[in-house]
């Protein structure tokens, strides 16, 4: 009997759940951060991996040039002084330095243009815009969740980076209370108890792919030995796509770490740093539970940096960036730097919440990626080059971490394209005019 045919029979007779037993390599995206194929709690039972999650963190007003770029490029870098608050995530995050927003002759709308390019890849020419990055990603990874995405703002506003195509913005939930009510209110259903209806499109595709498999015999007859081996590789690859579909067609495995969050109490919203500090933590807790319970797979955090202020002062973060003199001894603006440090600590606190829910060997953060971006490289003079970008979390094994990538002069949209490809959005290039790129950060793609 032909070897290929017999192997085919083995494959055909193998139930999907035992895929590993026949020794076929699994698709990369089926691996979690630990390289284990499955995330089942008992460590033995084969099941679907926990899904990947995507988050954005928009923190306007940049950082201080010279205080955040790690000295070393590549793996094993150490954090520069301004990123010390994120020290505990070293090895689980990436730093991307040197990118830029391109204006192509359009005026710089300070604090706005950067957000548009980072989220949409371009400066829109009218009210009708393309969808933002997170919406594109949600269309792929968030199709079957209760919320396509969740937006929240730390400064009590409704501002958000998330846009659907057209002119619609997805507004932020301004307070932890509002977010709690939306996710864990009466409409919340325990996902582990929910019924399951397989997707009819996936079922049709599954059957179509089987037809392609049937072409194998006729084709193999025409080929020599080495080409048959190549054809065999092709069909093995095809089989893996089928397996992926098979997983989609089964009832999802239970979400072991799902539990409803406690209701936040004693909430004050506003732009005072003490409120913001408290709310970051509460928002973090809520998001961690929402992700663990599969309520959404995409979220967007708007920091609302511009208006943040310390109690008892008239100056908020934004005017300080322009009016505070550079401290001669320090070489940077002292008060502005206090805000930067405050908000970087806030980012760390949010991430800590995501990292506190354990799922098997990993955490919610391990199967997520949170992308930190900003409007200006240096807010004092509104520069739009040398932008800081960070990603935190391994995205369920889709990303490599612990790497500093220096991308001097490249469009910042490279991160958007990289994230879309990592999340499975079909896109070879992204962005408009000079902000268009077809170069991903291959350094961090697993």
């Amino acid at each position, binding site marked *: 009997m*032909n070897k290929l045919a017999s192997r085919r029979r083995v494959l055909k007779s193998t139930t999907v759940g035992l895929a590993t037993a026949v020794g076929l390599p699994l698709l*990369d995206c089926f691996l979690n951060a630990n390289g284990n194929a499955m995330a089942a709690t008992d460590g033995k039972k084969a099941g679907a991996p926990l899904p990947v999650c995507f988050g954005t963190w928009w923190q306007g007003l940049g950082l201080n040039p010279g205080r955040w770029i790690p000295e070393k490029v590549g793996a094993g870098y150490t954090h520069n002084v301004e990123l010390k608050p994120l020290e505990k995530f070293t090895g689980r995050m990436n730093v991307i330095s040197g990118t830029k927003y391109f204006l192509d002759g359009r005026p710089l709308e300070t604090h706005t243009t950067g957000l548009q390019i980072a989220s949409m890849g371009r400066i829109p020419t009218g009210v009708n815009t393309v969808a933002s990055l997170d919406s594109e990603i949600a269309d792929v990874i968030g199709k079957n969740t209760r919320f396509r995405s969740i937006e929240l703002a730390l400064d009590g506003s409704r501002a958000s980076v998330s846009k659907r195509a057209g002119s619609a913005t997805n507004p932020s939930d301004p307070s932890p209370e509002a977010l709690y009510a939306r996710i864990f209110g009466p409409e919340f259903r325990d996902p582990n108890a929910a019924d399951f209806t397989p997707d009819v499109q996936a079922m049709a595709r599954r059957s*179509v792919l089987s037809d392609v498999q049937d072409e194998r015999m006729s*084709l193999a007859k025409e080929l020599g*030995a080495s080409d048959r081996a190549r*054809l065999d590789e092709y069909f093995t*690859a095809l089989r893996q796509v089928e397996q992926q579909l098979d997983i989609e067609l089964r009832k999802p495995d239970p979400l072991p770490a799902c539990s409803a969050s406690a209701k936040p109490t004693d909430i004050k919203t506003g732009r005072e740093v003490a409120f913001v500090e408290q709310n970051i933590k509460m928002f973090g807790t809520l998001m961690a539970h929402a992700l663990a319970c599969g309520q959404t797979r995409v979220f967007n955090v708007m920091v609302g940096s511009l208006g943040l202020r310390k109690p008892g002062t008239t100056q908020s973060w934004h005017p300080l960036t322009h009016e505070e003199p550079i401290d001669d001894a320090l070489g940077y603006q002292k008060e502005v730097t206090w805000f930067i440090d405050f908000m970087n600590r806030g980012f760390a606190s949010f991430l800590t919440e995501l990292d506190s829910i354990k799922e098997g060997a990993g955490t919610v953060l391990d199967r997520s990626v949170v992308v930190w971006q900003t409007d200006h490289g240096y807010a004092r003079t509104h520069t739009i080059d040398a932008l800081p970008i960070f990603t935190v979390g391994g995205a369920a094994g889709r990303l490599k971490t612990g790497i500093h990538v220096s991308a001097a002069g490249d469009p910042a949209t490279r991160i958007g394209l990289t994230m879309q490809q990592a999340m499975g959005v079909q896109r*070879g290039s992204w962005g408009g*005019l000079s902000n268009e790129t077809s170069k991903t950060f291959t350094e961090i793609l697993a």
Partner: protein
Amino acid sequence: MKQMHLIAVAVCAALASCAPAEDKVSGAGTTAGVAPVVAGEATMRRLTAEQYQNVIADLFGDTIELGGRFEPELRVNGLMAVGASSVSVTAAGMEQYDMMARRIAAQIMDEKRRALMMPCQPADAKLADDACARQFLAESGLWLYRRPLTDAELGSYVTTANKAAARLGNFHDGLAMSFSAMLASPRFLFRQETLEPDPAHKGQVRLTAYAKAAQLSFFLWNSGPDRALFEAARTGEIHTPKGYAKQVDRMIASPRLERGVRAFFVDNFHFDEFSLLTKDAEIFPKFSAQVLADAQEQTLRTVVDLLVKRRGDYRDIFTTKKTFLTQELAAIYKVPVAEHGPNGSPDIWQAFEFSKDSAYGGVQSQIAFTALHSHPGRSSPTIRGKAIREILMCQKVPAPPGNVDFKLVQDTNNPVYRTVRQRMDAHATNPVCTGCHKITDPMGYALETFDGGGAFRTKENGADIDASGTLDGKQFKSAMELGKVLHDSPATANCLVNRMASYATGRTFKREPWIQAMEQGFAAQGYVVPELMRAVALHDVFTRVAPPAQQAAN
């Protein structure tokens, strides 16, 4: 691949070949009574990204977006066209093919486009429609499989479409399912050399008419056959020498030949390496993604203009002053090129001729060569010399031994050894190194007047650059003089002949008598590249293959 031909051997071989043995050389094409030259065993080549794109564009127009990533291609003996015969599909690659297939199918079946894209519409859009599905799938199948579908194949796709339409309650969704399966089929993704018994040579095989048509169109147009070529295959006209020659003539005269010539040079010049090229922004501030794209385009336009539009002498690509520039490139070359298009247009091309005294001339002086074959922050005569030997002259340069201390070479701030030549001389005290460096560096030094970003310079770190050197005994003092030596060297033209034959067939050839005959033919007709392509297309080696080896199959 392990076998290293030291360059000395290659050079000796080249010298020996200057007087080819006439009696061993056979003429181009099949001579009656003489056994045909067989290229080798039948191959199965994976479509390149560009070929995939071209086929879809030929079939549905170029507004279809593919999305997705193609798997990296493999270079074998200088060409990815050869590597295509040994690559398969990985799981990640299959996922991309599958997604692209669905994306393309969805665009064709899109409510706003389907009237344009499809030859028919169903009687009821909610139900399966056997006749319309059959018509669409048969037509698309011809282009994707590059032959008519068999009844069984068509029947299977139609059944799939009908079943899916019933399940989804939508004709177009069902048809999209079936069509995306066709796009993911190995019959589409791999070009297979299918064979049949050859009536003219008893006991031998030849390419089938449709396989022959595909072979021809991918070589000359880098895409699938057009309708006329399919027709020549259907009627069997393509099997007659006259009918075949007629198709070759028609295809060489077609504007699509430019696409084929571009594809060849993209492959031959290693332009795929641009996707990994980075330049230190501090040292080369003008280098941008646009420059990377424009630099490749500049060289391709230079080559196509000279070789196809003006049917010039291939050897002139090493000396030509005529080129095309954008403003991005002009700023690096430091020449004035005003933008004549709309303000801000990033991609306006201007014909430009470098002055007689300019150091620029020939493709080896262009950014796509000098910057591609350099380090991120500095130039390298070794890398450039190696590229000249391997890419332009088909000679193999051995890899450096391990355990080499490159510290001195890399120390661009060295106060004593200020030019790379001085540093190399100091570095190459080890006789093992000197041997290899002698093969590459003297040619590379001539290009030292171009920095690692392709800009002209006369000094490095304040010291004058000495651009003199020798190539196979010929002396030169500048980049332009190196171009003249390359122009006059028989190795460059002969290399092109070998590469062209390899590219066309996906195979590697030694300098066999039939190749030598082709070299002579190329010289005799004035080194006109489209004529060389014609000679390759008309040669036995292009259409005759042996049946695949079966021994390991069972």
